[in-house]
């Protein structure tokens, strides 16, 4: 505070004038956030610069040449940038004000372009608390307020005491709930919330621990241990997170590794020369090189998984799911059960081998632009759960779903035919010219092996396709070596698409797409009668039940 007062004396006068005016109007004084937010704004400044690096690139390249000619400029430039960043963060901090009054929150922010957000508590759908690592020692957190869908504005209280944030959150949720109950009384139709409460009552007979506790109290549904995360890291490559941050250094790193290995008499360049090798030798070399790179990648991937999902917990409080995780930045995602659009179960080939799967609760992605980068949108992903845990979680969200027992209908074999003709044949022809026409040894054998793999993969892909429907849900299965299952309630459908080409029409087949608020799912090459039935049932459920989708 002191610093900012010194830095911008003139602005202060104007600001306090405004503040007194507002005070007269509304009675509640504007509040500043904690100075710890300076760090946040500083980081945001650099983040913004780096995310706009494309636009700055020409200037940087030109400037770089100039500066290398005159090295004495380095110091002033660095100080200039740092000074600008500091000034920016101090100003942002100075102009960021919020106040709570009358069941609403007002946020004023922005240095050049001012924004003024006014949010009644009743309109707030979601409250997310995220604590970056530099906040945690001081007990601060940032509070993201999520409204119903279409607002592009980011309503975020950047730094607030954790205890205050928690009590505010309680208050907001309570008043939002009250507003909803009033709405329910007004609307004659039963919707999600009513059903949820019924569900809760129904289940209270069971001996599930979470039902007996008060609605607002959180019940832990799931948590992940270190071994789960190691498995998750193995099966899901999170290397890209690392590569993204390491990209500027990759060139240096590869050179460094090369030099390092040369000391032991290993010459990478020689290793990559394939002259005078037989096909088998070459394959062996490729595999060993791949392994050489795969091991560090896997290690990084495991570290990535541990950092992202450290201390993962999934709680349920009333109709809300709350997911928390993160090693450095503690990330919290809250989702109301009624906002859940689709459950996705992902099982990669390695997952299949280890008997694990990833469970995703997907909600509307309308405000995906609003969510911070680095945060995995607003899905709740439960990493590497066992079959049993997965079933329990799914039963908790959608008690009447039959994903595990329902019989899937197969799609037409013509899909396989099309894929073989349209995709596999051209690839194999191209490969034939690459391999067989060049005179490597054993090339025919390798070609046959590759052809066999590609063809069996496309057969497998066809084999995995499946769809099913019951009174409440649509189930879709697809995949190749791994399997993905999708399950969504009929009434969550936003739009349906029925597709048919001439070829499909002649064979009484069609393709069907369901547009949900969380994205689109499709089924190819199913029989026309089934496709029409699927669409009719979905449209009918939407239009007849008139249940809300969020």
């Amino acid at each position, binding site marked *: 505070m002191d610093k900012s007062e010194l830095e911008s004396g003139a602005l202060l006068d104007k600001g306090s004038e405004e503040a007194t005016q507002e005070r007269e109007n509304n009675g509640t004084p504007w509040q500043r956030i904690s100075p710890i937010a300076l760090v946040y704004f500083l980081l945001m400044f650099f983040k913004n610069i780096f995310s706009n690096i494309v636009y700055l690139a020409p200037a940087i390249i030109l400037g770089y040449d100039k500066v290398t000619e005159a090295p004495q400029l380095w110091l002033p430039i660095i100080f200039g940038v740092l000074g600008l960043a500091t000034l920016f963060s101090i100003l942002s901090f100075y102009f960021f004000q919020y106040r709570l009054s009358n069941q609403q929150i007002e946020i004023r922010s922005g240095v050049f372009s001012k924004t003024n957000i006014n949010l009644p508590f009743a309109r707030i759908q979601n409250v997310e608390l995220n604590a970056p690592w530099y906040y945690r020692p001081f007990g601060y957190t940032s509070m993201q307020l999520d409204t119903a869908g279409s607002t592009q504005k980011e309503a975020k209280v950047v730094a607030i005491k954790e205890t205050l944030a928690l009590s505010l959150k309680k208050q907001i949720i309570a008043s939002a709930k009250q507003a909803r109950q009033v709405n329910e009384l007004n609307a004659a139709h039963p919707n999600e919330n009513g059903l949820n409460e019924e569900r809760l009552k129904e289940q209270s007979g069971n001996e599930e621990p979470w039902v007996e506790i008060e609605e607002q109290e959180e019940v832990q549904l799931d948590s992940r241990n270190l071994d789960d995360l190691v498995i998750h890291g193995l099966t899901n490559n999170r290397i890209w997170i690392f590569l993204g941050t390491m990209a500027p250094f990759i060139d240096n790193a590869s050179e460094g590794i090369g030099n390092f290995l040369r000391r032991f008499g290993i010459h990478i360049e020689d290793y990559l020369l394939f002259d005078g090798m037989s096909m088998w030798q070459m394959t062996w070399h490729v595999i060993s090189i791949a392994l050489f790179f795969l091991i560090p990648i896997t290690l990084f991937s495991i570290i990535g998984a541990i950092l992202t999902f450290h201390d993962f917990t999934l709680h349920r409080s009333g109709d809300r799911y709350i997911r928390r995780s993160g090693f450095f930045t503690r990330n919290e995602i809250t989702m109301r059960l009624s906002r859940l659009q689709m459950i996705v179960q992902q099982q990669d080939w390695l997952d299949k081998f280890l008997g694990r799967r990833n469970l995703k609760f997907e909600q509307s992605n309308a405000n995906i632009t609003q969510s911070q980068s680095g945060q995995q949108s607003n899905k709740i992903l439960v990493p590497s759960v066992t079959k049993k845990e997965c079933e329990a979680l799914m039963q908790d969200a959608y008690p009447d779903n039959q994903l595990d027992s329902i019989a899937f209908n197969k799609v037409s074999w013509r899909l396989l035919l099309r894929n073989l003709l349209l995709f596999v044949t051209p690839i194999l022809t191209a490969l034939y010219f690459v391999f067989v026409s060049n005179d490597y040894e054993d090339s025919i054998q390798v070609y046959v092996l590759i052809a066999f793999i590609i063809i069996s993969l496309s057969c497998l892909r066809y084999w995995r396709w499946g769809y099913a429907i*019951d*009174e409440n849900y649509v189930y879709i299965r697809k995949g190749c070596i791994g399997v993905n299952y999708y399950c969504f309630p009929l009434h969550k*459908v*936003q*739009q349906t698409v029925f597709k048919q*080409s001439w070829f499909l029409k002649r064979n009484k087949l069609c393709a069907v797409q369901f547009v949900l608020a969380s994205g689109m799912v499709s089924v190819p090459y199913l029989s026309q009668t089934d496709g029409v039935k*699927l669409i009719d*049932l979905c449209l009918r459920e939407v*239009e*007849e039940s008139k249940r809300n989708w969020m």
Partner: protein
Amino acid sequence: MENIKTADFSNQNIDEDQVTIENIEFSTLSKKYATSRRWLGLLVCLTYSTLVLFFTKQTWIAIPNGLLNAITISSFVISGGGLLITFYCHFADPCKAYNLREQDISYRCGLIFSKVISQPILRIQHVELKRGPIDRKLGLAKLQVFSAGGALHTFEIPGLELEKAEQLRQFILSHKDLTIHG
């Protein structure tokens, strides 16, 4: 797949009894729409070729050979593409049709790959009428319907008579489910 509910539910399509998307009767778009698209295509191609002609025949600026080649190739591509598109549109545009039922609105399009998009009215978030300069000249309008499915899945019907488009919009806006569940 046999659990079809039978309650008091009506989604009548004028005089059809069975509630299925298979037998909806589609109404065609305005005849002016296909014509306008043909003229627009022709106009674009003509404008481009006039520009090319002017550019290559003028004598003020010397054009490098490479650029001249590029222009020649691109004009072939554009005129050929324009011809193909016109051909396709000639057959495809009449396939575009829409239908309004009590509870949903559907749009059919596509010649070889035909597509029927159905949008339940109670999932609609907002409606827009869009009219470009040509649309305004011809008294046409494009109806855009937005749902929570996102911008990629905006439901739109082009080439409606203005009056019809306004009627449709009014029907959607005054639909009883929209006001409660919007």
